């Protein structure tokens, strides 16, 4: 059984979904079902956990683990506070740590992220930090006890895919915790590529929620992650400059 293990918990699906951008709760629910996801992130600053009928009800009805994130935070202080509120409200010590540097690029702030990660790990959180595609930072976050690292493929919502596959490969080589490609996925081949590069999982939201047919795109992503993972495990053939006939020319 090829399981994904994060913070000691086992998962079958390697596709993690976000919830932002869906046109309606019903469309979101259909997409989540089609994706086969077992973990889904929710921005704690945009949802009241006590409100009835919200996205949290949908996730609970589908039996999907809620991963609160700290989207909208610009300082380590904000992020730590938001994580604590999430733990209190949802009874989970898991947090996707997201500390943004500026609202135009939405790129993660490495210094604030590291600071917040250190404090949250010390407080007993299972921390999954969203970071740039920086192998050195990924290694440092592993060393301080993060449960996974989540490098971006390209900026949030951009759909530009994986702009620096080499850096993602270096991160995969550098760390022993799960590597979750987060942000930038535009279409199914991007998700497959992430898995082929050796990522343990893929997190995406806009690529599905803002697609013309979200449910169909969710199914495509599910299949792409499965295909990419299988290809990684199978081992691709070496690239060559010239052809090699696939049928033997001699018996």
């Amino acid at each position, binding site marked *: 059984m090829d399981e994904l293990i994060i913070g000691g918990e086992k998962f079958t699906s390697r596709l993690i979904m976000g919830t932002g951008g869906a*046109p*309606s*709760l*019903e*469309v979101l*629910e259909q997409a989540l079902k089609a994706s086969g996801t077992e973990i889904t992130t929710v921005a704690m600053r*945009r*949802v*009241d*956990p*006590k*409100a*009835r*009928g*919200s*996205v*949290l*009800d949908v*996730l*609970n*009805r*589908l*039996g999907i683990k809620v991963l609160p994130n700290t989207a909208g935070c610009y300082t380590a202080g904000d992020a730590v506070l938001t994580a604590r509120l999430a733990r209190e409200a949802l*009874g989970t010590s898991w947090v996707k740590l997201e500390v943004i540097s500026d*609202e*135009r690029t939405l790129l993660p702030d490495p210094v604030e992220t590291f600071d917040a990660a250190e404090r949250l790990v010390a407080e007993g959180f299972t921390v999954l930090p969203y970071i740039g595609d920086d192998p050195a930072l990924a290694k440092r976050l592993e060393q301080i006890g993060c449960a996974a690292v989540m490098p971006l493929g390209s900026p949030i*919502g951009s759909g530009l895919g994986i702009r620096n596959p080499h850096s993602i490969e270096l991160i995969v080589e550098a760390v022993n915790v799960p590597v979750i490609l987060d942000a930038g996925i535009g279409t199914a081949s991007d998700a497959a590529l992430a898995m082929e590069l050796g990522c343990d999982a893929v997190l995406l939201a806009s690529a599905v929620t*803002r*697609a*013309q*047919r*979200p449910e169909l795109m969710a199914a495509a992503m599910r299949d792409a992650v499965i295909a990419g993972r299988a290809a990684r495990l199978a081992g691709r053939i070496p690239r060559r400059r010239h052809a090699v006939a696939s049928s033997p020319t001699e018996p």
Partner: protein
Amino acid sequence: MTDTGIDGAAPDVLVVGGGIIGLAVAWRAARDGRSVAVVDPSPGSGASHAAAGMLAPVSEVTYTDEPLLQIGLESLRRWPAFAAELTEASGIDVDYRADGTLAVAFNPDDMTALDELGAFMRSLGLNVTRLTGRECRRLEPMLAPAVSGGMLAEHDAWVDPRRVTKALALVVDRLGVPVHRERVTGFLFTGPADDPKACRGVRLASGRTLPAGQVVLAAGAWSGFVDGLPPGVLPPVRPVKGQIMRLRAERPLLGHCVRGMVYGSPAYLVPRRDGELVLGATQEEMGFDERVTAGGVWELLRDARELVPGITELELVDVVARPRPGTPDNLPLIGPSAVDGLVLATGHHRNGILLAPLTADTALAEDRSAVAACSPARFAERGPDPDGGHDDVSTTR
């Protein structure tokens, strides 16, 4: 103190909710000769008080929302006559205008997205016109120079919802419809309480009862939370918080509704003839939270200023936060519920003003073919929503 409606007799129709939907339903019913009463602790003070009043089914269309587009277009067709009749009956000008919505883009990325949406609109048979940045600014000279292009939906319209609810309150009063300013705490059912056969009135917070021939639940975001409805009947309506701001200019700054994406969040500006300019609106899953937040105000101003830099000179007159009645599929519930005598007219989410004429025409009508997609039965098939928050929901897969 009387327990009942007109002349002490139980009214034919009792409308729970005095927002635009409830009052419009009450008006149509009373005009058609039925005896009607309305219950609302504070009529016109919910989402109708906050709404900008865009009647914009074309420029608001999004992928997967085609059913909403169809009922929106149908209701838009009914608005001119609805507004004219209401103005005639009340003497109040509701500031109905059909001058179109201009959706603008700020950079080539936004324009690409807008062009894709435009192609989708045309595939649905909608008439939208692609404009260059300079054409946009010729139409609306106050637009930011950064506008790189836009899309004009010529037939979109808008109205002032506060004037509409005021006019509706006036005309239902003239038709002899009493408005009981109380909260509903229960329903009068025949049959067992957990499986009622028929609804024949409501119970009020004061303890008194109001019997009626039938009850229309039009309580906006509160419709999903009224006491005394069994789980299978309670509509799956949730509050979706919106913060919205009103500015005032000496003279109107814009001639069209203007909308655009700013940092990925949709923003719009709605001008009125008297110089009021409405900036909207946040969409937050924050439950019943009527607090205006610093972040909400900042986002509204930030986004509107990107679109129309000149707004910073205007007077800030009003900011409110109200819960919209959201549903799982963004469509309202219009028509009979599973219980005889209980009719639903709720769940209009962002479209209550647009859909008011259609809802008023169909909620109590025999022929509801125009709102077939809004049948409350579509949720009954899916079973009742689990009640009481998320921690008691089973997590089986």
